[in-house]
């Protein structure tokens, strides 16, 4: 959770959060229609540069967060590479059948997953959840009871972490032994999941009652934080558009791979 991390605020933090969310989701949809592996590998650089240099977080943190992405790349790409359909066989061993088509399709899926992951990380690292929820209410007209429920729920999470540690300590003192195998699953559900969930349901119910007692309702309300659009939003769109344009141009003029469409 990023509010526990130290970081400097950059221009990316000043983007309108709701706009950022909608814009990123439309990028996601656009990426689904990119079928050229040359283009998508170039496109990966667009969010990567921002993640590396513009989030205001410490380099160490960024590198640490990027490590799982390598595993993600491989695990997304592997099944399509090994077991995809294709005609030009490169390598066959038992059930593994790597063809030129399936290899590049796998590579493409890997890059696509990387793109989504980087965009997601960029969003998570540069957006304060509270501002996002205020912005959802103010710009996208999300009903306040949904947004405020979210903010309240986020605040409950640290309490639950504390409760979890307390539970663990209590069970340790009472000498509860860990069971093995499948019984371990049922045991941890009964010992951890049930008490944690039931307590937080009770807490959530109490909070809702308290909020309504304090006249939280659907009528007109005023806000402590005001979210607006600014020039930064335009700069961001320009950066993405330039990046995407360049990626397309380079991908088409200087292709690295022979395949330009990974679909059959």
């Amino acid at each position, binding site marked *: 959770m990023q509010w526990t991390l130290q970081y400097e605020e950059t221009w990316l933090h000043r983007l309108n959060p709701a706009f950022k969310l909608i814009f990123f989701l439309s990028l996601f949809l656009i990426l689904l229609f990119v079928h050229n592996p040359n283009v998508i590998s170039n496109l990966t650089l667009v969010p990567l540069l921002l993640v590396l240099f513009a989030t205001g977080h410490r380099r160490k943190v960024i590198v640490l967060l990027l490590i799982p992405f390598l595993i993600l790349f491989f695990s997304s790409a*592997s099944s399509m590479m090994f077991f995809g*359909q294709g005609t030009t066989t490169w390598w066959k061993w038992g059930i593994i059948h790597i063809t030129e088509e399936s290899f590049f399709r796998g590579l493409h899926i890997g890059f696509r997953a990387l793109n989504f992951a980087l965009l*997601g*990380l960029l969003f998570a690292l540069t957006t304060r959840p509270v501002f996002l929820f205020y912005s959802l209410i103010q710009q996208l007209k999300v009903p306040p009871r949904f947004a405020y429920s979210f903010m309240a*729920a986020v605040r409950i999470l640290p309490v639950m972490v504390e409760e979890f540690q307390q539970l663990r300590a209590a069970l340790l003192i009472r000498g509860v032994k860990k069971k093995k195998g499948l019984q371990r699953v049922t045991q941890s559900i009964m010992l951890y999941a049930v008490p944690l969930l039931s307590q*937080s349901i009770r807490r959530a119910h109490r*909070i809702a009652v308290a909020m309504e007692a304090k006249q939280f309702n659907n009528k007109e309300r005023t806000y402590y934080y005001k979210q607006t659009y600014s020039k930064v939003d335009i700069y961001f769109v320009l950066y993405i558009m330039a990046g995407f344009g360049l990626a397309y141009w380079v991908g088409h003029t200087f292709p690295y791979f022979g395949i330009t469409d990974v679909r059959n």
Partner: protein
Amino acid sequence: MKRLKLSDILITIVVALVFGIIYKIWGPVYNIFKPFGLHIGDVIYGMWFIAGTVAVLLLRKPGVALLAETAAASGEFLVGSEYGLSVLLYGIVQGLGTELLFALFGYKRYTAFVAALGGIAAAVGSLVMDVAYGYVMDLALWNLLLLVGARLLGGFLIAGILAYYLVEALEKTGVTSLVRPASDKDYKALDQ
């Protein structure tokens, strides 16, 4: 149909966020389980549908499954999921799957059987997303069938059966009386 009250929404989102954290932890677990693309690990994929069924079994109201699954996905996303933005869209589609299935039963039946179908419906939702996202239709047929089979089985086992028993265990603690709408049976009990 009853509109969701503030307490319904708040409870749904709190439960969903707890699962959101589990969803985040599940990412690396899943990636370790599926190293060579054989999709056996997809049985545990079912964990990613559990918020929807648990919430709707708990609160027994329309709209809860979709809200819970979307909220869990947003929670996973905000904590910094390595799947990034895709989890949001997957969450919405999976939640829709569960929601539609419970709607099909008129939000009247909350048995283990319906819960299991709800889990499977979410799995179908995730597969629909996979067709667009991962070109899964271009996998060799046996591999595709393995993926579909493992995914559905995971939805059935984890999001269906496990979710049902989790909620049953929660019922014993008495919290469900806080959240469920009063049934006809309750009103009849008052008449006596």
